[in-house]
């Protein structure tokens, strides 16, 4: 008898614990219901809303002070939603175009622009400050559905120390990379999953033409190009010139990365070196431009517009280089000295129209894969 009552006691306690846990679960579930109701009604008040929601990719970054200044002068509170890498963020925006997640989108680049525009992602808006942006960046100049915000270049980077030690001149052009002197030195990214990988493929297509790039890549393959899946692996593991790559035992002194990798590498090394350990082969570059636009169906259109104006202000444009490692597009902005100190200027990057990219990318990536990966 005593035995039974004993069991009863302990199990009563446990039963109570389970009941509490179940209750908590219900509270959590109902709490999520009510919180969503709150946010729903919050966004429903439309034009008068004091919150503007930015949808962007993972690389979005801005100094705290600069964003606070915007919030103070405009009166809007900025909510940021990072939606994966650049490609993913655009695709999610398209998927949710009938009920967008936010008001303004930043981070669609020239390789994805046509896909975004064809899907009617944006409402036209001519931003204040657009006069300061040179025509070469304005790829939607007729309709102003998107506004250019920053530019950069995808280029082959090289390990300065390797080439000095081996008394070898670093390559400067696409053609150089197929020379025997650079055999087994280059690592690049999968063009089907990585945006620098795709940029480098498009650069070679711009250089050699629609029917010439295939034979270029066959030569690259014969010269021992290595392909990894993403930028992190290429730059942080395989490349011998980055500090992470050095630690990981990376042995490739040439990598497809960005023209801004040398400043990033130098600035994020403590203590900061005099010159960056990474150089840029300036004849292997492809221009990338990033755009912002007012999302079609945005709840706070006014807020979205004033946010785009903010992206073109001198304050934001000069803040970008050290946060996102991209170049300003407005003529009145000068990047900070910390950045220009290590910056490598790319005079003539390869370019390609978004239309042409959209028409060809799937086919090109497919035949690229069968040349390089098989």
């Amino acid at each position, binding site marked *: 008898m005593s035995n039974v009552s004993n069991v*009863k006691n*302990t*199990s009563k306690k*446990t*039963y109570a614990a389970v009941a509490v*846990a179940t209750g*908590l*679960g219900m509270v*959590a579930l109902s*709490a*999520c*219901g009510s*919180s*969503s*109701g709150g*946010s729903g009604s919050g966004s429903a008040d439309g034009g008068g809303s004091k919150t503007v929601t930015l949808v962007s990719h*993972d*690389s979005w*970054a*801005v*100094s705290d002070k600069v964003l606070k200044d915007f919030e103070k002068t405009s009166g809007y509170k900025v909510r*940021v*939603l*990072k*939606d*994966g*890498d650049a*490609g*993913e963020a655009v*695709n*999610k925006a398209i*998927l*949710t175009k009938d*009920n967008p*997640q936010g008001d303004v989108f930043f981070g669609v680049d020239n390789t994805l622009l046509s*896909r975004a525009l064809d899907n009617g992602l944006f409402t036209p808006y001519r931003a204040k400050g657009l006069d300061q942006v040179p025509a070469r960046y304005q790829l939607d100049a007729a309709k102003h559905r998107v506004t250019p915000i920053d530019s950069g270049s995808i280029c082959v980077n090289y390990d300065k120390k390797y080439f000095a030690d081996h008394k070898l001149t670093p390559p400067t052009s696409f053609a150089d990379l197929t020379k025997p002197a650079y055999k087994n030195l280059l690592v690049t990214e999968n063009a*089907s*999953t990585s945006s620098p990988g795709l940029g480098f493929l498009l650069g070679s297509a711009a250089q050699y033409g629609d029917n010439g790039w295939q034979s270029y890549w066959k030569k690259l393959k014969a010269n021992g190009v290595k392909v*990894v*899946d993403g930028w*992190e692996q290429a730059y*942080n*593991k*395989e490349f011998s010139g*980055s*500090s*992470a790559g050095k*630690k*990981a035992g990376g042995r490739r002194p040439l990598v497809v*990365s960005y023209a801004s990798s040398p400043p*990033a*590498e*130098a600035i*994020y*090394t*403590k203590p900061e070196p005099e010159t960056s350990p990474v150089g840029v082969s300036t004849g292997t570059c492809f221009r990338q431009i990033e755009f912002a636009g007012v999302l079609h169906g945005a709840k706070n259109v006014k807020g979205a517009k004033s946010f785009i104006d903010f992206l073109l202000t001198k304050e934001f444009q000069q803040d970008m280089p*050290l*946060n*996102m490692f991209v170049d300003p597009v407005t003529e009145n902005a000068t990047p900070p000295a910390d950045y220009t100190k290590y910056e490598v200027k790319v005079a003539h990057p390869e370019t390609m129209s978004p239309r042409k990219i959209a028409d060809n990318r799937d086919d090109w990536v497919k035949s690229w894969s069968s040349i390089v*990966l098989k």
Partner: protein
Amino acid sequence: MKSAPADASRRGGAARLVLMAGPVAFFGVFFAYPVVAIVRRGLYGDGGRRAGRILDVLGQPDVRHVLWFTVWQALASTALTLLVALPGAYVFARLDFPGKQVLRAVVTVPFVLPTVVAGTAFLALLGQGGLLDQLWGVRLDTTVWAILIAHVFFNYAVVVRTVGGLWAQLDPRQEEAARMLGASRFAAWRKVTLPALGPAVAAAALMVFLFTFTSFGVVQILGGPGYSTLEVEIYRQTAQIFDLSTAAALTIVQFAAVGLILAVHARTVRRRESALRLVDAAHTARRPRGAGQWGLLAGVLATIGLLLLLPLGVLVARSLDTPGGYGFAYYRALTSADGGTFLVPPIDAIGNSLRYAFAATAIALVIGSLAAAALTLPRPRTDSTGGTTSAGRLVRGLDALLMLPLGVSAVTVGFGFLITLDKPPLDLRSSWILVPLAQALVGVPFVVRTMLPVLRAVDGRLREAAAVLGASPLRVWREVDLPMVRRAMLIAAGFAFAVSLGEFGATVFIARPDRPTLPVAVARLLGRAGDLNYGQAMALSTVLMIVCAVALLVLERLRPAKASTGEF
């Protein structure tokens, strides 16, 4: 005599429907609805393509190649993991040695590591310039071996915890009795212990298979672009190429494959289930005796050292290896918010991860326990009338439904969330609760799988006896099942917690930038150039390991007070 159990079983049937309502609603809303919506959009949406697309896609040689590779690498990984980890399960269940508790927590750490981070460690061992390369000139990266070994690394704990959990509760006296009756040690193990362990081994194998079948990061990082699983293809088609119809077709193929595996599993397990005599785990482990046991212990420790601790050690070493010599500079950098990668100092991710993990564990435990209780109560096998076939089918259906999230791509679920949970009353797209909900989806199968073998091993006659004495089904569960299942519940909670801490695929979609979890923060740091970012990523990974190990240790300490000695 006959009427009482039948009556209990009838009442049990009603109770089961009530119990099942919660899990079914949860999975219906947060899993089935989003997945079905995104697949429908892919098949019938914008482009006007037909459902016949599945056949087109299956006809492509590339896709068939991917499917074949996915299946065989998963089978090979599962076999290899069982081979390597079963001796470990035995050692943790039956042998006592100093540091056992800590080591048990440590072997679970790989399970929570983001694959980007673990991939780094493996490249340092198997890749170019790695340890193997320096010692013997052997490189395994971009070979299938690297993928298989990494799969063992990640899933070792699944076998040790799932199988070891039951093994520790098997009465060793049964095996001893068999030996007393003249059976050899191996024969006794094969005839007595192995059949009893069957369901747990099958459950572990199933989970390892599902995990490796849907492997993503490991295949990308260690295999390189030359290797691709269905999961990788679905991600590419959905997130990168945005060909939703191909993605939908691939999702259906993956779904069918997973469904087939679950069906096969259900059949084999059903035949093996039996009531077992379970004892308190505290009394089954003892210090190793004889050369055999010492040798086994040494072998298991050496395996753990080489396969699990060495890669983890590489990460810790990297996190301390600053340009100015070994030190804590990267850890200090974690406390500042500069650089703009985050809106908050990276260290805040610890708090976020823990909060999400607690919520996810609570949800997974509630849903999982309800489901496990529904699946065992009442036991159709003990019902002699044979009138439970429809109920049995219902049970099997729920059983399979609960496992499906392990076999469905995170990107499919994540994109599905975007188009389904966007309207009141379920406007959750930007709500924090979505993160623990998504994590709990993956946690529930672990809770169910860990608890089921133990619950089913409970002798049905105990329940019948209680019912005969007038106990309600709830009370039967409370007084018969719960005391036996408490230990399994703790192990399950550990799994759910670990899954939540390490979950990346779904979390990365949903986590807000001002509230990154540890794996999300690590991935963001790795995405930027520069020594400081990389160093911080390594430091934060080390923090993640420590958080996981400590959390598991604390969790496993929360055991019933009466069993105060032994391993738990």
